[in-house]
């Protein structure tokens, strides 16, 4: 059985490093905070390797099926009727895979940042934030309780916020961090309500119990959840769709994606860690976690997921073709790839060979983490060199940055789905699942994968070729600390595809072999090569062709370049509707009407007081008159009106 202390240490080492660096980073660990953080994470990484070995090869299986183990469960906050938030650790194939991914990528980023962030004034703060993020992300993937996952969900959100806004002097960074937090918060609103709905109908917050109750066909909980409906949609579907909304926000799915490109304001290693490899796939992870319920009891929601996924994949790929900020291109490409993972889940069935989509999605998550982190770190190295994010400042860098160039190329090939790089295998699985399930999705996905190859290579050529090599007066390529992660990741990106992923991860824990039909692969590979070729034609040398094409389709180009004006729509809604139509009136009403009423009551009293002062006229005869009136009035009242 798993060693609980080791399991607990995996997330808690980064937590400890966060606390220590946060409290003493400026004093005791002034110079060594980077090393301290990296070391603690390294231990954590080793422990997670140990754990995953243990899980996959020793105790994880029972009867040939990977079990969902919960070696630790502490009651944290108990509500009524068996509803309680537990702090637990769940071990199943996907969580074990995720801790591997998270610790590994995080370790790479830690190492990379040692050089990249050197000389920053808030170096230790940076590392403490990184540790916080790592802790939260590990907590998220290990959560055994849906509320626990929500808690860590929020924590990764806030660490993302802190890291995006790390350069807090830059107004654009501040704006981006706010945007990221608020948009995901909006999505979390859905998540929260979804949790409330699910917990109400399932009577539990525990994942295993929840899944068990909502998938076993005879259970009373499932029955009420399916039969109760609101606006014609069953409660179960509402709950799951709302939970998915949370996932969509965090994973930057259309239309909640607008924060991700802006999030690139953060330091590049952060983008690699959070906004490429780990946090943004939390949504995918969440859907995967609830996959049994979705697949068995709520196929409608799966369709929604497919739809959103495929739209996101396509739109993001289109936008990526037009962007000029290299990190933004990568951001859109991340979006697009997450779309792939999402719809792969959407088109997947549950159990056995039906679950190809599931396995492929997780596989893609895994490989994507490697090559996308690599791309970002490579881009970071480029940015480190030229001190700019803009393509126009780049070109012809292949001589200056040889290692970056090679690793970047490997990553591009992987993402473009060129065999035998890792991306090829995972994407192949996804396409296959889509093909079997829904041809329309397949065709769209196919087109998108072609586009992927195009825009990635556009990026590649634009950075490393395009112009003649220029002499930069800057320093060299960044040194060992920056190159080591690049190389390690490049190796991973190149060979990870050969992992027999289905043997570890499948929808129901049973063993699965991802089918491979080389005939099927012809179309995507050809398309990918076509994309690469056209990118080469347009961008290998500086020529006007690309501009000609864009001016030829200027309308469409503009639409895509401006990201389909989604940001503007949001801006309109928040500025014009929420601020002007709700916020301002609310504030105005409060000050003028409600408070006005309070003041009015005071003013009325005063006015009445002023008005009636004339009766105290100072004339003693008037007083006598009032006296008499009073007597007579009271007499009349008591004798004739009230009548005793």
């Amino acid at each position, binding site marked *: 059985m798993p060693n609980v202390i080791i399991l607990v240490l995996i997330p808690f080492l980064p937590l400890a490093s966060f606390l220590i660096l946060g409290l003493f980073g400026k004093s005791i660990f002034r110079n060594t905070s980077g090393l301290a953080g990296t070391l603690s994470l390294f231990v954590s990484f080793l422990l997670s390797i140990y754990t995953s070995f243990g899980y996959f090869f020793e105790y994880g299986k029972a009867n040939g099926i990977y079990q969902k183990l919960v070696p630790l469960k502490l009651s944290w906050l108990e509500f009524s009727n068996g509803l309680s938030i537990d702090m637990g650790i769940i071990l199943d194939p996907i969580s074990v895979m995720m801790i591997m991914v998270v610790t590994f990528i995080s370790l790479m980023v830690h190492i990379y940042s040692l050089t990249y962030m050197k000389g920053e004034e808030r170096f230790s703060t940076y590392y403490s934030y990184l540790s916080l993020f790592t802790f939260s992300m590990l907590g998220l993937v290990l959560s055994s309780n849906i509320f626990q996952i929500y808690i860590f969900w929020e924590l990764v959100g806030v660490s993302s916020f802190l890291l995006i806004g790390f350069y807090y002097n830059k107004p654009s960074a501040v704006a981006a961090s706010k945007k990221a937090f608020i948009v995901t918060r909006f999505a979390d609103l859905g998540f929260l309500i979804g949790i409330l709905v699910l917990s109400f109908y399932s009577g539990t917050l525990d994942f295993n119990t929840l899944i068990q109750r909502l998938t076993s066909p005879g259970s009373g909980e499932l029955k009420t959840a399916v039969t109760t409906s609101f606006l014609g949609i069953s409660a179960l579907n509402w709950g799951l769709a709302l939970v998915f909304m949370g996932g969509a926000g965090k994973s930057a799915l259309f239309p909640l994606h607008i924060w991700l490109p802006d999030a690139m304001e953060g330091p590049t290693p952060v983008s690699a860690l959070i906004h490429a490899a780990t946090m943004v796939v939390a949504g995918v992870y969440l859907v995967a976690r609830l996959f049994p319920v979705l697949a068995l009891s709520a196929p409608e929601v799966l369709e929604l997921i497919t739809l959103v996924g495929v739209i996101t994949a396509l739109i993001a790929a289109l936008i990526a073709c037009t962007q000029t900020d290299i990190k933004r291109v990568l951001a859109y490409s991340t979006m697009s790839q997450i779309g792939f993972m999402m719809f792969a889940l959407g088109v997947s069935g549950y159990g056995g060979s039906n679950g190809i989509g599931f396995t492929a999605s997780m596989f893609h998550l895994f490989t994507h983490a490697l090559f996308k982190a690599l791309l970002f770190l490579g881009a970071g190295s480029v940015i480190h060199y030229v001190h700019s994010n803009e393509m126009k400042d780049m070109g012809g860098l292949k001589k200056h940055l040889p290692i970056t160039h090679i690793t970047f190329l490997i990553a591009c090939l992987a993402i473009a789905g060129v065999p035998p790089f890792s991306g090829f295998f995972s994407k192949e699985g996804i396409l296959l699942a889509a093909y079997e399930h829904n041809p329309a999705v397949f065709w769209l996905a196919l087109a998108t994968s072609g586009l992927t190859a195009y825009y990635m290579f556009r990026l590649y050529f634009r950075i490393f070729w395009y112009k003649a090599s220029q002499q930069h007066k800057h320093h060299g390529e960044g040194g060992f600390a920056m190159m080591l992660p690049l190389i390690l990741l490049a190796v991973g990106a190149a060979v990870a595809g050969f992992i027999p992923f289905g043997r570890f991860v499948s929808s129901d824990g049973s063993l699965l072999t991802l089918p491979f039909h080389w005939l099927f692969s012809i179309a995507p590979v050809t398309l990918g090569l076509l994309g690469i070729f056209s990118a080469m034609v347009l961008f290998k040398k500086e020529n006007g062709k690309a501009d000609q094409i864009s001016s030829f389709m200027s309308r469409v180009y503009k639409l895509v370049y401006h990201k389909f004006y989604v940001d503007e729509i949001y801006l309109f809604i928040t500025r014009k509707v929420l601020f002007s139509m709700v916020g301002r009136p609310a504030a105005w009403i409060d000050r003028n009407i409600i408070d006005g009423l309070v003041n009015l009551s005071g003013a009325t009293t005063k006015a009445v007081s002023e008005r009636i*002062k*004339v009766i105290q*006229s*100072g004339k*003693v*005869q008037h007083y*006598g*008159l009032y006296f008499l009136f009073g007597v007579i009035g009271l007499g009349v009242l008591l004798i004739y009106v009230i009548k005793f």
Partner: protein
Amino acid sequence: MQPGIYHLLLISTALFFIGVYGFFTRRNLITMLMSIELILNSVNINFIAFNKYLWANKLDGVLFTIFIMAIAAAEAAVAIAIIINLYRSRQSIDVKHAEELKW
């Protein structure tokens, strides 16, 4: 016709309202004081009438009347003293000149 209690009460009531009217309309403080005396006298008539016609065996009413007269005299004495003092400061005993305290 023998005058009965109603006649007397009529007189007293009339006297009461004459007094009240005088108190409300006269501007001279002394006259106002006299109007109050009229009110008191109407009460006296009441007491006497009730005593004579209704409760002839109890002398309360008559006694009360005597006391009222005595008190009225005392009251008038103090009031006139005050009015004299008022006259010193204002050179007038018109009630219109004593309306400074108001509101």
